[in-house]
């Protein structure tokens, strides 16, 4: 608050004055958007490592549930000594694994790396600003996030372990301390960690929106903004409007957990075959509604999945056009489609709750709204395909990832149309089919988008190029292993395999699915191991990669008009002015095949513009 009162800090023309700052202020408690972006990115990488390892344990359990894992039992003593042998996974431990895998991946990795990481790195560069609007708030936002990460990671080691009520934290499981071991201290840490995360994300969102609205350079009208910048703007607006609902819900959950209220806890709760009674012999909790939590959670939850998705869609548009060396097909419809997806995301949360016994007419309204999202999504896909049509494509690493996003967006989106309708959804709810769907579209597309953006904008992070050969190898291993892991889940989901089940083979009808689960697990392990290629490439290239020039990819955007990495204040001289859109590839009137956004209009173009009237090219 006080920072806003003071206003943003000085930056312009002082690039050299800051050169001798102490290391701790320059790289640790930095206010520079690029450093903060990289800090977010690297922290998200660490969190991804943790959440990825949790996923591997989940997969081992699903393929070979009753196997005695002697080694794992030594590493995770709290998780592996139940059952017959001494190395079989405990059910509570399994619940904790999928809960924390989901929580960390959704919030601390896939919201953080693309939005907070690349948003901070790219927004001032693409908008032509010296820095974010509130640099101090920006640094504060990172360190708030960092505390959230520490709280979440600590929760594994407190009391009976981390939260185990699912990443959606549905009460009563998350509200009753005795419901699961993880619902004691672990769930409290979960809530506190989430509150820190949301506070950080809100500070970031304020910065994003204010910077994009107020600090764009001269000439950068909204319809000249790169798709990535549009995505960041929409994502920040979605975050600012949706996350407060979860904060409200989290505060009420804290009241239910610690002050004995009954916002979410209904009458008649029975725990371990004994009714949950107070001292007066009446039920301890009365009249609360677990569905209330679900409404508040999914009011956030659905926009949240687009917070993950939209940056990847933006990166993809920027990367596809560059490597196709063609203008983006249907730019305005792309912007409109993104806005439509963002807007619709606020009125469709009910499709997560079709089995909650809602009025079928209401379910139909939610279903229709959800299916409508297929329209702008299809607009995006067709525009990408039209951009690629007839192009002489350069198949570098970023392009492979971008095409991977398009592929995952289609294959994951098609199953979305199934799940959007209440009738099939009631059958498929909480099965592996849902897990397949959201891992392809939300997790997969976001992850591939991040990998693509990393290889594309790496020069602006570290001033060096990533290794292309290693990058391509990483892509192909990941791409094939990703589909092998998640595509078969559609099949076992339709066959009735439950989503969060500890031991599927306790049911006779799921026993034949074990070979498929083994195949999925082996693919998942390959997928996990392939990421070592990325880590090697990332850290090796950051320190020893080939030095990059200003504009290694022959791109048009403002971020490519300054050094790699950009200096403090982003441009040593005046901020460049923008004269055209960012997708001016293959314009036959120019000798080069790409025209920078800063290139003034030629005499012929000015004449044409005057003849057409001001509105055609301007807005």
């Amino acid at each position, binding site marked *: 608050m006080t920072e806003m009162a003071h206003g*943003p800090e000085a930056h312009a023309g002082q690039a050299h004055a800051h050169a001798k700052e102490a290391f701790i202020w320059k790289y640790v408690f930095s206010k520079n958007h690029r450093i903060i972006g990289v800090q977010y990115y690297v922290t998200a990488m660490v969190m991804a490592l943790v959440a990825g390892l949790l996923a591997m344990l989940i997969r081992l359990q699903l393929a070979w549930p009753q196997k005695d894992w002697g080694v794992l039992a030594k590493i995770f003593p709290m998780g592996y000594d139940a059952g017959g042998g001494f190395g079989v996974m405990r059910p509570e431990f399994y619940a904790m694994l999928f809960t924390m895998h989901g929580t960390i991946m959704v919030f601390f990795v896939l919201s953080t790396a693309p939005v907070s990481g690349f948003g901070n790195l790219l927004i001032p560069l693409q908008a032509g600003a010296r820095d974010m609007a509130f640099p101090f708030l920006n640094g504060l936002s990172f360190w708030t996030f960092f505390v959230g990460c520490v709280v979440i990671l600590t929760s594994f080691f407190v009391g009976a372990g981390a939260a185990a009520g699912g990443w959606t934290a549905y009460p009563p499981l998350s509200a009753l301390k005795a419901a699961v071991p993880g619902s004691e201290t672990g769930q409290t840490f979960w809530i506190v960690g989430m509150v820190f995360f949301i506070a950080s994300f809100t500070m970031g969102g304020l910065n994003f929106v204010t910077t994009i609205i*107020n600090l764009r350079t001269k000439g950068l009208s909204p319809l000249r903004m790169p798709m990535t910048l549009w995505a960041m703007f929409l994502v920040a607006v979605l975050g600012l409007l949706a996350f407060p609902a979860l904060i409200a819900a989290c505060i009420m959950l804290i009241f239910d957990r610690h002050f004995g209220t009954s916002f979410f806890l209904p009458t008649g709760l029975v725990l371990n075959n004994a009714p949950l009674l107070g001292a007066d012999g009446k039920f301890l909790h009365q009249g609360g509604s677990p569905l209330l939590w679900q409404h508040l959670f999914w009011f956030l939850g659905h926009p949240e999945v687009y917070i993950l998705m939209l940056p990847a869609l933006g990166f993809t548009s920027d990367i596809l056009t560059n490597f196709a060396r063609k203008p983006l097909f249907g730019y305005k419809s792309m912007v409109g489609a993104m806005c439509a997806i963002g807007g619709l995301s606020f009125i469709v949360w009910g499709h997560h709750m079709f089995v909650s016994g809602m009025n079928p007419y209401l379910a139909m309204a939610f279903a229709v709204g959800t299916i409508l999202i297929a329209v702008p999504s299809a607009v995006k896909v067709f525009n990408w395909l039209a951009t690629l049509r007839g192009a002489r494509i350069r198949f570098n690493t970023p392009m492979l990832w971008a095409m991977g996003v398009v592929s995952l967006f289609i294959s994951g989106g098609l199953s979305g149309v199934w799940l959007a309708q209440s009738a099939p959804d009631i059958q498929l709810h909480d099965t592996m089919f849902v897990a397949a769907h959201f891992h392809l579209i939300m997790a997969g597309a976001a992850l591939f988008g991040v990998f693509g953006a990393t290889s594309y904008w790496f020069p602006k992070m570290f001033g060096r190029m990533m290794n292309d050969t290693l990058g391509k190898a990483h892509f192909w291993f990941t791409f094939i292993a990703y589909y092998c892991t998640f595509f078969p889940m559609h099949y076992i989901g339709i066959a009735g395999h439950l989503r969060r089940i500890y031991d599927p083979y306790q049911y006779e009808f799921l026993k034949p699915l074990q070979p498929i689960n083994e195949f999925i697990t082996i693919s998942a392990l390959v997928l996990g191991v392939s990421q070592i290629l990325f880590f090697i490439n990332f850290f090796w290239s950051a320190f020893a990669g080939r030095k990059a020039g200003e504009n290694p990819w022959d791109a048009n955007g403002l971020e490519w008009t300054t050094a790699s990495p950009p200096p403090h204040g982003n441009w040593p001289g005046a901020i460049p002015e923008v004269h055209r859109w960012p997708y001016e590839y293959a314009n036959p009137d120019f000798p080069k095949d790409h025209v920078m956004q800063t290139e003034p209009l030629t005499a012929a173009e000015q004449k044409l513009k005057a003849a057409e009237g001001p509105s055609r090219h301007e807005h």
Partner: protein
Amino acid sequence: MSTEVLRKSPRPALDRGGPGGGGPGGEGDGGREGPELFYDPARFGLWLFLGTLTMMFIGFTSAYMVRRLAPDWIPLRPPGLLWANTAALLLSSGTLEGARRRLRGWNVAGVGPWLLATGALGVLFVAGQLTAWKVLVSRGYFVSSNPHNSFFYLLSGVHGVHLVVGLVWFGVVLVKARRFAYTPGEDGLGMFATYWHFLTGLWVYLLLLLFVL
């Protein structure tokens, strides 16, 4: 959000001096470079923040409206003190406007008393709210006895936390005012006033929601 956001700032806002150092424009380039569209970013950011607060209370409101339909809802009779607290908060908004008007009208000597009155009334409000909680507890109306009680403690508590944040900001404003950091004739108190009035309006809304509607 109101038209306030869309109104161009009456002054080159980034050029504000003050103890925090110059704006990002820095070295006398008229306070800005580049942007054609231009609103005061700090003010804009504040309105965005108030937007997120509004969304949070919309979340609480929807929860309240759903929960009150349950059969175990017993209406809580508000302690009379609440009305006095409300009056104090409304008055504090009034005195803050008084201080703001005097600063804009070059009456520097007149700003101090009105600001102090604002702070005193704000502290009085928080103390009054805490007392109201105590009164309720002494009468046996605990947070978990009834959903209406729960909502009263919850909403007044969350509002109170934001008001305490406002009082911290008020402390900063007071220090700046004592150092004559505010230029007479300008609306230096505008941002703080926006936040403070928002909290006053929010409290009136919560009171209506809890006990009148």
